[in-house]
């Protein structure tokens, strides 16, 4: 019966525009972030996204270097990646991804 468990699969999120698979529910680190337009989640990993140009942005938690992430199929902006954080308490975000709640949909659950 072992193979049955694998058939069920991990919980996925997709791009709201083209349903490309972009992140896993298990990779959520925090659900308490703010995106451009509302609630956003911090993920440890992302897939099928294109990382854009780096730029410095003053966010609610201070100065960060971020890069917007785009769905690699339809180029919809889904959030951003933290490239660098300048305060010690914010360093844990480096290399992690923000996906806006309004840009991702539950895929298979």
């Amino acid at each position, binding site marked *: *019966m072992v193979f049955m*468990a694998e058939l*069920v699969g991990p919980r996925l999120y997709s791009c709201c525009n083209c349903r490309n698979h972009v992140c896993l529910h298990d990779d959520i680190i925090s659900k308490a972030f703010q995106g451009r337009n509302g609630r956003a989640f911090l993920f440890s990993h992302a897939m099928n996204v294109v990382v854009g140009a780096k730029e410095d942005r003053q966010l609610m938690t201070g100065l960060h270097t971020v890069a917007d992430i785009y769905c690699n199929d339809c180029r919809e902006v889904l959030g951003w990646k933290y490239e660098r954080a300048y305060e010690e308490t914010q360093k844990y975000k480096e290399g992690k991804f923000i996906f806006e709640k309004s840009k991702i*949909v539950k895929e298979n659950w």
Partner: protein
Amino acid sequence: MSEEVQRYGGGGGGGGGGVAALSLDLLGQVLDRVREPRDRKACRLVSRAFARAEAAHRRALRVLRREPLARLLRAFRALERLDLSACASLDDASLAAALSGADLAGVRRVCLARASGVGWRGLDALVAACPRLEAVDLSHCVGAGDREAAALAAATGLRELSLEKCLGVTDMGLAKVVVGCPRLEKLSLKWCREISDIGIDLLSKKCHELRSLDISYLKVGNESLRSISSLEKLEELAMVCCSCIDDDGLELLGKGSNSLQSVDVSRCDHVTSQGLASLIDGHHFLQKLNAADSLHEMRQSFLSNLAKLKDTLTVLRLDGLEVSSSFLLAIGGCNNLVEIGLSKCNGVTDEGISSLVTQCSHLRVIDLTCCNLLTNNALDSIAENCKMVEHLRLESCSSISEKGLEQIATSCPNLKEIDLTDCGVNDAALQHLAKCSELLVLKLGLCSSISDKGLAFISSSCGKLIELDLYRCNSITDDGLAALANGCKKIKMLNLCYCNKITDSGLGHLGSLEELTNLELRCLVRITGIGISSVAIGCKNLIEIDLKRCYSVDDAGLWALARYALNLRQLTISYCQVTGLGLCHLLSSLRCLQDVKMVHLSWVSIEGFEMALRAACGRLKKLKMLSGLKSVLSPELLQMLQACGCRIRWVNKPLVYKD
């Protein structure tokens, strides 16, 4: 109590006799009218006569533990509905043994959802013992396959069957069912991805009485829709995430002979508004249409055809669509709409909402999640026009405030559910919402301006509240919980995650909430075993508790759970200070515990995990543990767990968190 009964016991004459003078049958009819399960329980305890009357008339039974199953089935002769979905560690042998010797001639509906230990042997016994079986729910028995389907096929009178997530069922098993149960009216094959067009074709040829069919997530294509279109009595069709279906298939349905009232094509990426237009063309009596997260653009053909449904359409979900104000105006032409879903739609403005609701005064469910352009003006329009609204979802509509909510609260007395997660509402808003005395569900996640004062307003008049979400409302203190415990005695689900001012004193107040079933307390760093004890002792119906990152909770705290929270089914203790001994005690005492999340239990040794998991092996269905453990736990233990139907999720989570 028993002495009083004896005093009356002499029979009907003399001083009026009291309740004990009633015959068993009359008493049974009186007890039939007692609806609340806890009231029925109280009645059973009055006297032997009451207990006998209740037993003789009881129609529904939900069994929580395997051991008394046989005795219970024999005690209740009039059973019609049997729910074994929560019966911990039910397996074929115990089910078959319990069924033999019991009189189950009246049993019509049986629920075995998630009963992963039950296989074809148990189902054979069930079908043999219940000749009048009409409805079986086998959903989420992921190991169930064709052999189980064959067992159910012997129930010739079967009218309703759910095989949702029975992953092993193929066309062969389905064939057995449709041939054996020709009277099927309602069938769910959701997630049974082995099923193909061939299986659906046979289904359509054999089950002419089919009214409701769910083929969501299947890999079936347009040919299945061709077959399905011949089912004349079909009213309800769900095809969520059927990626092999496209506009051609919908056109086939549009030309078919069904009596479609409800269609769900949400998440179907190859469906467009053109296909929906041709579907509507053939079915002018559609009541419910769900096209959430599937459409990208809107053709005029769809809008013109939608107008044909203006008399019958009551439910329309178009979540994830790019809309305009003129589009919403056009939709408003369906004046009888009761439910509208516009969650995560781009372009929803105050103007659009206004033009929609002025035409749809019957709206009861309005979903505007993530429609962040909306302001209090939209709420004003809703308050003015939709006075019957019951469910209002406004998550992430951050521009609304207490002024708009005042209008809603004043004009909409029937409000049952409101979702204000991430809306930034304050205590003044809650003062207004307190007017909604019918409120059942209140979601205030991420509203950090909410304080005890706001909770006091709600507690003073929302006595029917069942669900309260205060996720990250970090201004809440113990006083707020005191108010809640006083005024909202019916609360079942409570989320206090990250409300880190709460201490054991606050949990002490929660101990008086007797209806509480689900409690989330993530990262409440001040609570200890003392608080947990109060909850465990007082909240006897507790099914789920989440204590992730409650760093001060140690073995003593979990001892209280092990001793008192005997109905607990789901537990999260990741990052708690439990040792191997505490964990072992916990897992061996809680006989209903099925789902445990225990990531980063740094004080538990490998031996500790081994002992604890072995103690609960037959009962556990879901486990979440740190992936590092996968290589150090004995393979024999892991195999045993899997053989008993337990699914293990291995995760990589950091040990140190920054909040």
